[in-house]
């Protein structure tokens, strides 16, 4: 994973709550067997509406998505994270994320940072009145900043550490191979296996 310490970019105000992963990428786009190429599926059903915020050219270069509460609920599809990354987003801000989506983001390198609702509202207003507003997400200092605004972000310590160090989760866990071996040696003998029965 690439290191992530501070990111600055323009932002898109997505004035919706309960954006489930079926909306982020509908199931018909999940048939690819690669990790990339999902940008065309991002918010596919909503992008048919010319008024949808992503269709507005002023937000074309944005890399920060500012969303309402309960973003990324529902299906476990990591394709939702890949689609956001493929489209060019590096950060999503919301007051609350679906658990699995937040976990997937942490693995795939999209920063899903929790900020409170008043901050979301403030950002929406700022961005809408000036779409060129630059938002800085400082993962080291755990805050977001614009030219004249700052607020705390919430990212769990482990995810933050992995982002800042650019660490691959599997490699970290494989460092504990001895502990895994020891655990396996003591597993209850009646636990099932899939190969006999």
């Amino acid at each position, binding site marked *: 994973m690439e290191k992530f310490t501070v990111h600055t970019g323009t932002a898109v105000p997505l004035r919706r*709550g309960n954006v489930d992963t079926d909306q982020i990428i509908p199931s018909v786009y*999940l048939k690819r*067997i690669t990790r990339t190429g999902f940008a065309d599926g991002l918010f596919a059903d909503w992008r048919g509406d010319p008024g949808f915020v992503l269709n507005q050219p002023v937000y074309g270069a944005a890399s920060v998505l500012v969303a309402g509460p309960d973003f990324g609920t529902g299906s*476990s599809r*990591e394709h939702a994270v890949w689609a956001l990354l493929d489209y060019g987003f590096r950060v999503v801000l919301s007051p609350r994320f679906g658990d*699995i989506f937040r976990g997937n983001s942490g693995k795939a390198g999209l920063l899903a940072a929790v900020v409170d609702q008043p901050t979301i509202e403030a950002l929406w207003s700022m961005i809408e009145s000036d779409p060129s507003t630059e938002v800085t997400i400082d993962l080291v200092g755990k805050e977001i900043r614009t030219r004249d605004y700052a607020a705390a972000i919430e990212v769990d310590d482990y995810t933050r550490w992995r982002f800042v160090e650019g660490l691959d989760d599997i490699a970290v866990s494989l460092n504990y191979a001895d502990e895994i071996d020891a655990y396996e040696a003591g597993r209850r003998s009646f636990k099932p296996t899939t*190969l006999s*029965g």
Partner: protein
Amino acid sequence: MPSKISGMPTTLAEKVWADHVVRSAENEPDLLYIDLHLVHEVTSPQAFEGLRLAGRMVRRPDLTIATEDHNIPTVDIDKPIADPVSRAQVEALRANCAEFGIRLHSLGDVEQGIVHVVGPQLGLTQPGMTVVCGDSHTSTHGAFGALAFGIGTSEVEHVLATQTLMQTSPKTMAVTVGGRLPPGVTAKDLVLSLITQEGTGGGQGYVVEYRGEAIEALSMEARMTICNMSIEWGAKAGLIAPDATTLDYLRGRPHAPAGDNWDAAVAYWRTLVSDPDAVFDKEVVVDATTLTPFVTWGTNPGQGVPLGGVVPSPADMPDEARRHAAERALDYMALTAGTPMRDIAVDTVFIGSCTNGRIEDLRAAAKVMAGRKVAETVRMLVVPGSARVRLQAEEEGLDVVFKESGAEWRGAGCSMCLGMNPDQLAPGERSASTSNRNFEGRQGKGGRTHLVSPLVAAATAVTGRLSAPTDLMV
């Protein structure tokens, strides 16, 4: 779930968690051992590719099992899959399972079916286990007192490579359901009511234990329906303490322990209860006796109302966010506030999914359909959750009941629950569906979904409008 001092009262979830900690360190997530990893075609190809790129093996193929369910057709299953993109994804699963030595149940195999129906039916899902799958409805397996949750593809790769996951311990919640469900009110009605009460984010960050008289009275199938929908109110997992009903379900299944192992397992399983004085981070109480058939009107599972109620008015919503969401939902669903739910006509009835595609669900629906016809305006799909469920239903003659009523009797799979295969709603079509999500476009672009129980689905198929079986008695 802060780690507790030995001897302190603990909850069921904490006991299962503690039993799987491989490594624990201050300010780090726990490394948890995974007892069973279920795999399907949609969320696994990139994980296997990741293993190949890194030169890694599957650590425990013997704790891994795969099935084809999400994108496969439910008709002509003896022929090659018509959609080339779906076919390529299924063929990738077959090649990956062959390469890494993983047991796979392919289309046409008697053990093929929806992962969350297959695991329990094989006896692979047992109390006290950790179960994961690249699918959010993995929470289903919590019905056995297992800690079961959905993961994304990166975590699928992590489990394949290490048989572990890095997990931050969640908070615990008890949902105590007192009293008994009235006749005609099912586990589905209970869980839909609960989600509307608590909201789609109400369970976020929690492992939920369902308990109380109403839960104890439920069959394993009904418990699976409840735990299945834990994710729909945001919970990490849902579980139910194992009891005699659990043991009766497991005994004699292909992968259930036998002989001395059975006795040893049962002795352990009996310890899997929350201690009487265990403290939960949150408690919710539900009175089962007041519940009635429950259906959704909106575009998330928390937008529900009793079948006897009316489409709510956005003006009555408690805050602006929910008012706005309701306006959007009514617009998408083409509904007007104040309309009685029973006046809503549907085009399609879908019975199936990991929520309600088990034998008990098909029996309940068939009982309503027996001697009755599907309304001329309605297309009804009955999709068993697994090939075994299909065979059992056929042995019991349920297929004949459905076919004689005019319903389509299909092969096993996820089907119209998520519309990845050809079983989809057309734009503007409206369904009564026993599945788990009524999101915009979930069952097909522009499709409109009302989540219902199998009983309501069957009665609705007969009348063409949202109905309960009692409406057919007149």
